[in-house]
């Protein structure tokens, strides 16, 4: 069975269709529904929007309902406030059934209607998005997917709706990589997992009695690089998700850590201590050749390329404590970026290059903060206290990080300016080290 989703845009009911095809990665490995979702706070300025339950013809898979998933996606973004279906005055499923006056009365800005149809092994959705104030149609498309991938279809529609309204691509079809830690028979068990952004459809990619950390997505979303202690020492592995094929690419004496991909996918930034102490190197993946980028007695680590793929942000304690530095080009003299407190580490740039996000200590607590790279202004984004591992969504609108809640390590998603958030706790044990995937094309 094909694991593709097909989408068609229709201008009117009988207009000619054109299609674009999205290749989807096949999920492999055992299923593991371990993350729960808890929305803790909505954004103040969330846009009121109605996702009307889609009409259905033919047998639909039990459990997952497309319009419910879309509603949850849009609510999770913090930018929308979906109307509960029981408050709707009517349940239109196509454009000519939408009476704008009803939706205006309910204070709605946008209405999404649709119809689901079963076609053999596939399910198709025909959906239309309306702007209530302008009484105009913003979207009219069909999309289809295998019955088993109904969640993929729903996330795809969420992306389209999000982009039609905000002008920014949605990130609901992206995935999260993270590490869970459970105590099994008195011993730790680490699992590297990949799930949808809402925590659903989790698959275990690797489990180990020894630590796994720092997963990093390749720019095409097909591979992960990470650190695993499975050989009793830290080593860096590349892991192809579709096949499960793994390659150990760095196992030098000392540290082998903090992998980060170049935007072209050809090289990795790594932290190695083979030459004495923690330094940043660039490894060409094909040839395995190394180029050393830092040379200092201090700790240099947690490197990441900037949004253009030219400069490099990293953590160094050359000033006495960990701070974020920026190297304009490979090997250039680093410039210090953070000054707001004694501990600022693990930088991650925004997709537009305007901000850098990092872990920031203030009054004994560890938060996520960002600095505006043009003005130097620093903003603390979180109120939680043991925060680490920030990872920015590929559309730059959200950020995921690890923190503690009731003695348990959880993942929290916030909007990139610090607004709305939701948490993804593991059903048991800890979940940490989140990495937000790129948008797969």
């Amino acid at each position, binding site marked *: 069975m094909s694991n593709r989703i097909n989408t068609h845009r229709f201008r009117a009911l009988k207009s000619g269709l054109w299609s674009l095809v999205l290749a989807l990665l096949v999920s492999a490995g055992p299923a593991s529904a371990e993350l729960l979702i808890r929305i803790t706070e909505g954004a103040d300025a969330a846009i009121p929007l109605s996702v009307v339950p889609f009409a259905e013809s033919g047998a639909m898979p039990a459990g997952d309902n497309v319009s419910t998933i879309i509603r949850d996606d849009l609510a999770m973004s913090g930018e929308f406030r979906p109307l509960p279906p029981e408050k709707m005055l009517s349940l239109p499923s196509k454009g000519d059934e939408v009476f704008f006056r009803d939706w205006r009365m309910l204070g709605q800005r946008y209405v999404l209607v649709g119809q689901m149809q079963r076609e053999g092994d596939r399910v198709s959705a025909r959906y239309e998005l309306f702007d209530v104030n302008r009484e105009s149609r913003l979207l009219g498309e069909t999309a289809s997917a295998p019955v088993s991938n109904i969640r993929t279809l729903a996330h795809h529609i969420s992306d389209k709706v999000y982009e039609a309204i905000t002008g920014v691509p949605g990130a609901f079809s992206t995935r999260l990589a993270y590490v869970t830690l459970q105590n099994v028979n008195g011993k730790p068990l680490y699992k590297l997992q990949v799930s949808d952004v809402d925590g659903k459809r989790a698959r275990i990619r690797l489990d180990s009695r020894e630590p796994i950390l720092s997963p990093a997505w390749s720019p095409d979303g097909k591979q992960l690089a990470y650190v695993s202690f499975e050989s009793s020492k830290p080593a860096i592995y590349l892991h192809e998700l579709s096949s499960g094929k793994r390659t150990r690419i760095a196992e030098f004496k000392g540290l082998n*850590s903090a992998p980060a991909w170049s935007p072209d996918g050809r090289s990795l930034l790594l932290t190695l201590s083979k030459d004495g102490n*923690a330094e940043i190197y660039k490894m060409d993946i094909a040839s395995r050749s190394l180029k050393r980028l830092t040379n200092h007695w201090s700790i240099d680590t947690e490197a990441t390329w900037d949004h253009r793929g030219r400069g490099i942000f990293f953590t160094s304690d050359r000033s006495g404590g960990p701070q974020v530095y920026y190297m304009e080009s490979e090997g250039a003299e680093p410039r210090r970026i953070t000054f707001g407190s004694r501990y600022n580490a693990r930088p991650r740039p925004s997709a537009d290059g305007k901000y850098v996000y990092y872990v920031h200590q203030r009054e004994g607590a560890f938060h996520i903060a960002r600095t505006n790279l043009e003005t130097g202004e620093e903003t603390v984004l979180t109120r939680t206290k043991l925060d680490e591992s920030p990872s920015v969504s590929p559309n730059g609108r959200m950020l995921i990080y690890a923190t503690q809640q009731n003695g348990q390590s959880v993942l929290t998603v916030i909007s990139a300016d610090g607004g709305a958030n939701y948490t993804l706790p593991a059903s048991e044990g800890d979940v940490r080290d989140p990495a937000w995937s790129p948008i797969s094309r």
Partner: protein
Amino acid sequence: MNISMKQKAVAMVFSLGLMAGCSSTGETVDEGYTDTAASGQDGSTVYGGTDDGGISSGQLSAEERQAAQERAEMEAMRQITTFYFDFDTSEIKPEARDVLVAHAKFLAANPSQQVRLEGHGDERGTKEYNLALGERRANAVERFLIVNGASRGQIETVSYGEEKPAVMGSTDSAWAQNRRVELIFQ
């Protein structure tokens, strides 16, 4: 339980340190002895107490007696295998030095003996920085052992950063016990 364990260990290191220092001057000091033994969760055990190894002192010369006493003291100190650090530092604490000297002398006397130094940090801050910090702590202990007689080939270092806490929890006490280097003799 764990904090009292640590306090005992520190007290032991300190008192044994005094003993070792005094013995080298040839004086006889008894205040250094205590009668405690405590088992740690991590398998390390701290011993104290008068330990003459079953030797009847009446049959030995003063020099022999002193040598046996020193051996016993070194033996007792070597039972301490975990060393603690302050936040974001890799500085060996003064009270750890005599115990590490005992370990170094033992390694020097037993060239085939291998030791693995595992460096750790507390959960605060970032994982990768803590990995580097754990390595820096293990390296500090390695250098100290080498300066005091161990050879580089006997020592292997690895850092686990914040990944393997000795004690769970987010308290000052838990953090203090997790910022450590463990010596694992192999």
